[in-house]
C-alpha cells in the first residue's frame, strides 16, 4: 500500500508544477514551529504542508488566524474547518494574504525612478483536504487548491494539488509530502507560470511526555532548507513553541505560546527576522 502511495506521489511529481511561491500564510502554530510541521499532529494548519496530518484531528477543528508580517508589510488570515469521520477526515481552509503599499513607478525623463501611486497584491486560496487512516499509524492525504490573485490591475487563477503521508510508530513520526502539484497560474495578460515543486521529508520525536522535536527537510527549485521546531508543555493546557525556519540562517527565529481554554485555544506567535523585522500572529482554535 505504501509503495503504491509513494509511486503515485512521485509520478505526479515529475509531471506537474506548483504555486508555492505565492503563499506563505499557513497557521499560527506552523509559524511558531518554524514551518517544521510535516510530521506534526497539528491537524488543520499542518495539513496545508502535509495533507496526511489532517488525520490528527479528533472530531471537529475550527480555526481563525490573523497575521501581521514584517511590521505591517503584509497582512493575512486563515479560516479553517475540519471534521473527522471514522478513518477519514475532511477540511476546508481559506488562506488570504494582502500586501499593500507597493509603489507604482516608472522611469522619469531624468532617468530616475518616479512614483505615481501605490498598488497592492492579494491572494485568495481555498484548500480542500481529505485524509485517510490507511492502517494503525499510517495516514495519507490529498489537498486540492484553487488560487485567485490580484496584482495591480491584473488577475491570475490557478489550481494545484498537495499529497502527503504520515507514519507514526510509538514516539517517532516520519512524513513525506509534495506540494503544489499540477499548478500552473494563468494571468489575465495571457502569461502562464509553472511553479517549482516542493518536496518535504519530515520527522518528529517525542523526547519526553512534555517535549516534542520536529524537523523538516524541504527541496524546491534546486534548493534545500531544513527547519526545526520544538514544543514544550509547561502545563496540560500551556504549550510553548520554538522554531527555526532555516537552520542555515540563525538570524531568524520564531516563538509561540498556546493556551488551552477548555475546547478553545488561543495561540500567539512572534517571529524575528534580522533584516525584515518582526511578525505577529494570533490564532483562535476550537477542538472537540
Amino acid at each position, binding site marked *: 500500500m505504501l509503495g503504491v502511495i509513494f509511486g503515485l506521489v512521485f509520478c505526479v511529481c515529475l509531471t506537474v508544477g506548483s504555486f508555492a511561491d505565492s503563499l506563505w500564510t499557513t497557521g499560527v502554530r506552523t509559524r511558531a514551529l518554524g514551518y517544521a510541521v510535516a510530521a506534526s499532529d497539528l491537524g488543520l494548519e499542518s495539513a496545508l504542508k502535509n495533507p496526511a496530518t489532517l488525520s490528527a484531528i479528533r472530531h471537529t477543528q475550527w480555526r481563525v488566524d490573523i497575521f501581521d508580517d514584517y511590521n505591517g508589510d503584509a497582512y493575512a488570515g486563515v479560516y479553517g474547518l475540519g471534521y473527522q469521520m471514522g478513518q477519514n477526515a475532511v477540511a476546508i481552509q481559506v488562506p488570504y494574504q494582502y*500586501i499593500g503599499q*507597493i509603489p507604482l513607478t516608472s522611469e522619469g525623463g531624468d532617468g530616475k525612478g518616479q512614483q505615481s501611486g501605490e498598488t497592492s497584491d492579494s491572494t485568495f486560496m481555498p484548500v480542500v483536504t481529505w485524509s485517510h487512516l490507511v492502517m494503525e499509524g499510517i495516514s495519507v492525504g490529498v489537498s486540492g487548491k484553487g488560487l485567485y490573485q490580484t*496584482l495591480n490591475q491584473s488577475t491570475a487563477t490557478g489550481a494545484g494539488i498537495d499529497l502527503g503521508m504520515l507514519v507514526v510508530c510509538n514516539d517517532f513520526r516520519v512524513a513525506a509530502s509534495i506540494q503544489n502539484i499540477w499548478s500552473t497560474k494563468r494571468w489575465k495578460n495571457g502569461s502562464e507560470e509553472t511553479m517549482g515543486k516542493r518536496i518535504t521529508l519530515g520527522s518528529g520525536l517525542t523526547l519526553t511526555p512534555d517535549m516534542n522535536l520536529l524537523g523538516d527537510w524541504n527541496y524546491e527549485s534546486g534548493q534545500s532548507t531544513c527547519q526545526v521546531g520544538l514544543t514544550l508543555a509547561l502545563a496540560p493546557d500551556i504549550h510553548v513553541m520554538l522554531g527555526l525556519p532555516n537552520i542555515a540562517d540563525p538570524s531568524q527565529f520564531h516563538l509561540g505560546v498556546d493556551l488551552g481554554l477548555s475546547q478553545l485555544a488561543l495561540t500567539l506567535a512572534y517571529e524575528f527576522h534580522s533584516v525584515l523585522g518582526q511578525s505577529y500572529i494570533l490564532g483562535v482554535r476550537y477542538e472537540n
Partner: protein
Amino acid sequence: MKINCFFVAVIASFAIGTTLLSAEQLIIKQEVTTPSAEIQAATFEKIPGVLKITILSIAPRGNRNFRYFIATTAPTADTKVVTEAIQKQSGIRYVDINGDIENQSTRFNDPFVNTQDYLVSPFMLGFEAIPANEAVLVAVIDSGVDYTHPDIKDRVAVNEKDPINGIDDDGNGYVDDYWGYDFTGYSEGKGKNDPADLYGHGTHLAGIIGADANNGIGIAGINPKVKILDIKFLNERGYGTQLDAAMAIYYAIDRGAKVLNCSWGYPKNGQFLREAVNEALAKGIILVAAAGNLNSSVIDYPAAYDGVLSIGSIDRNGNKSNFSNWGDRLDFMCYGSQVYSLAPHNSYAFLSGTSQSTALATGIISRLLSYNPNMSRTQVKSLFNQIAGNGSRDLYMGYGAIKINKLLTALSIPIPEDDRSSVNVVDTPPAPTPNTNVVALNFDALSVSQLLPFPNPATSSQIKIGFSLNKAAAVTLSIYDFSGSLRKKWEINGNSGYNKSTCDLVDDNGNTLKNGTYILVANGCTDSETAAARSKISILR
C-alpha cells in the same frame, strides 16, 4: 570644551556632546589701549599652553575700542590655567571658550513616515490668508542653503553689490559674498563666499520658511515674499563654533536681515555670542531660536537669551513633542514633528525637531512682517502671547502654541470658511505616499533614502533600483520573498547623491523570480556606519 549645535538626532546629540577636540580655542576680547595687536599676540603666544594666536581680522561691528584674538591651546594644556594666564594681561575684557554648536533637528529613520501635513494642521490652517505684501529678508543662519534647488533658488537673496569677480566690491570685508557667506572655520581663516549646504539642515529650514509656492513643483513655504539670506556656519557634519555663529549674526545684521532663524544651540552663555545677539536685538531684529531636542529643562543659547523668541515643538495633536526641551525660558510652541521640506540635490525629506518648529515660527513672523513691515519684535511677541494661550507661562508649553486662526482673528483678517480647501497650496508635495520610499534624510549619519524600483511592477526580465545616499557607501541590495527567504543579493559602490542599479529578475540559484511581490532592502555601509531602506518589488510579466 565644545558646544553642540541643534540639528543632530537626540541620541547622536548625547554621544556627540561628550566629544572633545584635541585642542581648544579661546576668544579673547581686549581693549585697544594696550600695545599693538601684533605685539600683544606675541605676548599671548609665550603663555605656556598656547600654541597659536590669531588676530581676528574683522573686529565685530568695527568697534574700534576693542580687538579680538583667537588663542589655540595645546591638546595637553589645561584650559583653565591658560585662561587665567591670559586674563592677567592688561585690558582683557573676557576670555571665552569657542565651543561647538549643534543644530536642532531630531532625526527620524522611521520608514513609515508618510505625510506632510503641517500646512493643513489645526495650527497652520489659513496661514495663506495673511496678505504677503512686502519682501522680508530672513537670515537662515545654519548649514547653508542649496541655492540651486529649483524650489528655493528664486527666493534666495543675492548681493548684487558684490558679484563674483574676486573683488570685495561692496567693501564689507567679505569678498564676493553674492550668495551669502560661509563662516565655517572662520576662526581659522577659512571663511569663504560659497554658503552651499553640505549638510542639508539649512536647506530644509529655508524650504519651510519660503519654498517657492505655486511654481508647480515641490512644496510651498510659509511666506511667498520672503528673501532668504544664506549664512552658513555649520559644517558638513552640522557643527560650528561660537565665534563662527556670532560672526554669522553680525553679517546678517550688516546685510539688513529683519528676522534671524537660529535652529541651533550652545549650552553655555557664551559672551561673544551674547554680544552678537544683543547687537541684533538692539537693531530691532527678531531672533527666533530653537529650544533644543533633548527633552531637557535646560534651554540652550541663543534661545535662552532675553529678547530671543524661544520655540519648542508640538506634534500634530498639539502635544509637546517628546524631544522638545522645556523650561522657564520657553516662549512658544510650533509644529515640529515630521515636517516635509527641501533637501539638497533637488530632493525632499522629512525631519523633526525644534529646528523645524523654529523655522515654521520664522515663516509665520516673516509673513506677518510682509503684511505689516512696521511690526516690531515687541508687537510680534505681544501678538503671539495674545493668540497662543491664556497669557500664563507653562514650563512645558511656554505661552502656548501659535495658532493661525487666532492670529487671523487678532489681525481682523477673515478666516477662510473652509480652512482646508482654502489652503492655496497648489504645489503641495507630490502625494507623499504611505510607504517606505519617502524617509527622513539623516544628515548626520549615513542614510539611504528614496529607494524605488522602477518600473514597478516589472514587466520584463529586468528592473532598475534607484536610491539616494547622503555620502558614499558600499550598498548591498537584497530581494526577499514574504516567507523571509533571501532570493537575490548583490553589491554596488554607491556615491553621494542618486544611484541606480539594474538587476535581472533571477534569483541566486538561477531560478526566474515568479510573478508576485517581494521585499527590496538596500543596506548602506561605510567603515563606521550602516543604514537601510526598504521597498517592495512586484513582478507582473
